[in-house]
């Protein structure tokens, strides 16, 4: 039973049809959560007594950072599944998760820099969290660069998966070591968020935004996976049928 | 023609099951299927030549038999057991000579054989000298291999045929860059190896003079229809 389910997941065609059915629902949910969270967080939540309105960027920054890290593990797990069970669809997921994850990591870094300007008076400080995020971006870019360096897709996927797995072992070590490094150099600048707890009126919209970002991540991942499945299977009969009869897309 | 030096193993123990068996093996490169559901058995004392045009998958088949390449489907068995369970026996009884000679130019012929890459054997200097003399490299033992011709480099690798105690030889184009006397030498070595109960799988573009040689034709492309 479970095995059959697993095999279905390995079939690009099955995936394409199923994801096509889920996608509209996921997209609507993601839009709903993001809209509610944005309005609530940006307009309705109270201003911070110390930082004023500039703190509101956490409604983008925090969810993006969460997903950047979670996305790295998702990518590596997908790669491991591909390596162990030789499942091509898992490699597709890994490949797409790398791009989406790198983009989110960049968003997290960018919003962090924008936040830094009013808070620290400069766009970039070597804060522990930002530094870790930067290294995470480098790890993502390494996986993408390695994948693109190979001509043969299968070999590229396997090599990238191996590198992603090495990265998962390293990510906690990197985070811990950067934390340790930061306490060693303890700059005189003020610390934000770290210890201060968010008031619940600020926290609630943040949670909504985090859920919204997770949904958005799923939508983005599925969309790019669908595109890649089509490109990979361009020669198969079911893709040809799709192209010639676009109205039967969801039924395949 | 000089006499061959003796092999380190004179006679392999008798066997009743096939030494090597490929069961329903398929191979794909990229999106191209080279061969499909191919079954081959190699008994002790047998030699098999794989024929086929360029790109038909001869080297791939040999690499699958060596365990270097995993088949897309099917299994490789050594002494009746799948390779995954028996890889130590398989590797320790295997001599694989690939396209490249695996001979280091900065080492001398003697050093190349004294420290084989696989770190498995330690051959005595005397045995190495004998083997090098047999493959026609007497007097070249202490010269760096970068000064050798392509044929001479291959001869260094071929000296392993004499030195090694491996039972299964997998030879990918062993005659490349080898002159006529060299070809005769390899044929004699192969015949002697079969005599002592060894087995050989080889690819070659030229006919091989070996009594009882079996042949396998790879048509290339999709053999299954």
């Amino acid at each position: 039973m479970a095995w059959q389910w697993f095999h279905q997941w390995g079939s690009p065609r099955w995936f394409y049809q199923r994801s096509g059915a889920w996608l509209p629902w996921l997209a609507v949910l993601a839009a709903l959560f993001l809209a509610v969270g944005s309005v609530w967080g940006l307009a309705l939540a109270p201003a911070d007594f110390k930082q004023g309105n500039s703190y509101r960027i956490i409604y983008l920054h925090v969810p993006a950072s969460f997903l950047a890290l979670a996305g790295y593990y998702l990518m590596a797990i997908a790669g491991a599944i591909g390596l162990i069970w030789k499942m091509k669809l898992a490699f597709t997921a890994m490949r797409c998760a790398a791009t989406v994850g790198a983009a989110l990591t960049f968003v997290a870094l960018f919003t962090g820099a924008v936040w830094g300007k009013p808070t620290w008076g400069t766009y970039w400080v070597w804060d522990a969290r930002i530094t870790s995020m930067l290294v995470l971006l480098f790890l993502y870019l390494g996986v993408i660069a390695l994948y693109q360096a190979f001509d043969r897709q299968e070999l590229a996927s396997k090599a990238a998966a191996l590198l992603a797995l090495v990265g998962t072992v390293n990510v906690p070590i990197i985070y811990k070591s950067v934390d340790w490094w930061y306490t060693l150099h303890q700059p005189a600048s003020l610390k934000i968020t770290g210890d201060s707890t968010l008031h619940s009126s600020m926290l609630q919209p943040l949670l909504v935004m985090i859920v919204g970002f997770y949904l958005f991540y799923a939508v983005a991942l599925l969309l790019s996976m669908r595109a890649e499945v089509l490109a990979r299977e361009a020669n198969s009969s079911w893709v040809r049928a799709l192209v010639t009869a676009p109205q039967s897309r969801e039924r395949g | 023609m000089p006499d061959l030096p003796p092999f380190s193993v004179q006679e392999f123990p008798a066997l009743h099951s096939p030494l090597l068996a490929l069961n329903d093996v398929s191979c794909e490169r990229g999106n191209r299927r080279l061969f499909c559901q191919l079954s081959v058995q190699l008994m002790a004392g047998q030699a098999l030549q794989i024929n086929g045009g360029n790109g038909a998958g001869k080297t791939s088949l040999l690499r699958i038999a060596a365990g270097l390449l995993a088949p897309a489907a099917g299994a490789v068995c050594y002494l009746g057991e799948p390779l995954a369970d028996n890889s130590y026996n398989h590797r320790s009884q295997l001599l694989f000579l690939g396209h490249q000679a695996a001979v280091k130019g900065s080492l001398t012929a003697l050093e190349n054989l004294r420290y084989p890459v696989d770190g498995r054997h330690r051959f005595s200097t005397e045995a190495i000298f004998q083997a090098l003399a047999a493959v026609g490299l007497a007097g070249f033992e202490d010269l760096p291999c970068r000064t050798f011709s392509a044929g001479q480099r291959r001869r260094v690798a071929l000296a392993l045929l004499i030195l090694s105690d491996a039972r299964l030889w997998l030879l990918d184009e062993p005659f490349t860059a080898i002159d006529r006397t060299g070809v005769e030498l390899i044929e004699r070595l192969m015949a002697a190896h079969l005599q002592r109960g060894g087995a050989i799988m080889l690819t070659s573009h030229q006919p091989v003079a070996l009594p009882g040689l079996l042949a396998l034709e790879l048509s290339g492309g999709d053999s299954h229809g």
Partner: protein
Amino acid sequence: MANGTVNTLRRELLLASRRRGELANPLLFFVMMAALVPLGISPQSTVLAELAPGMIWVMALLATLLSLEPLFAEDYRDGSLDQLLLAADGMAFAVLGKMLAHWLVTGLPLTLVAPLLATLLALPAAGWLPLLASLLVGTLALSFIGAMGAALTVSLQRSGVLLTLIVMPLYVPVIIFGSATVQRAIEGFSWLAPLALLATLAVAAIALCPLVVVGALRLTASE
């Protein structure tokens, strides 16, 4: 089991002894970079002393990166890699030998010339011993972690820059603990904690990296 390691180590050292010129290159790079620092920043010894621990560590890292590309590439080209994969007692032991040899001909010499750099960059006396100790242990981690990158990119034509890109983020903890060992010693604190962490990294790298390298090389062989 360890036979494979010892034999490979012996073979690699013999090979290394035949191309000493090539081996000297990372060392020359290490020393030349040190000469650029005062030219680019300031010859004042107070400034140099402050930068020295981090600078020396960054340069050791770069020198190691430069030496990684040929680690498996030559074996890949001449067919030795296939033989390595067929090593009867497991390829991991043979690979371990190769990686140890790499450290012996790059990491260890880098450590040995470090006093020269310490002089050039006016490293305070309290930092000398910690510098040597941290480089000795840390370059082991650099060699082993870097070998994973070398193995992953071995079949690529121009792997140099890519290899650097994928390995550098993995070097972050090594450089943090390495330079911290020296810095803390100069500031008068105990430097054993970062050194111990560095040693932990090195031991973990020695234990785990050969397995990843074997996996990566197997991928290449199935090409």
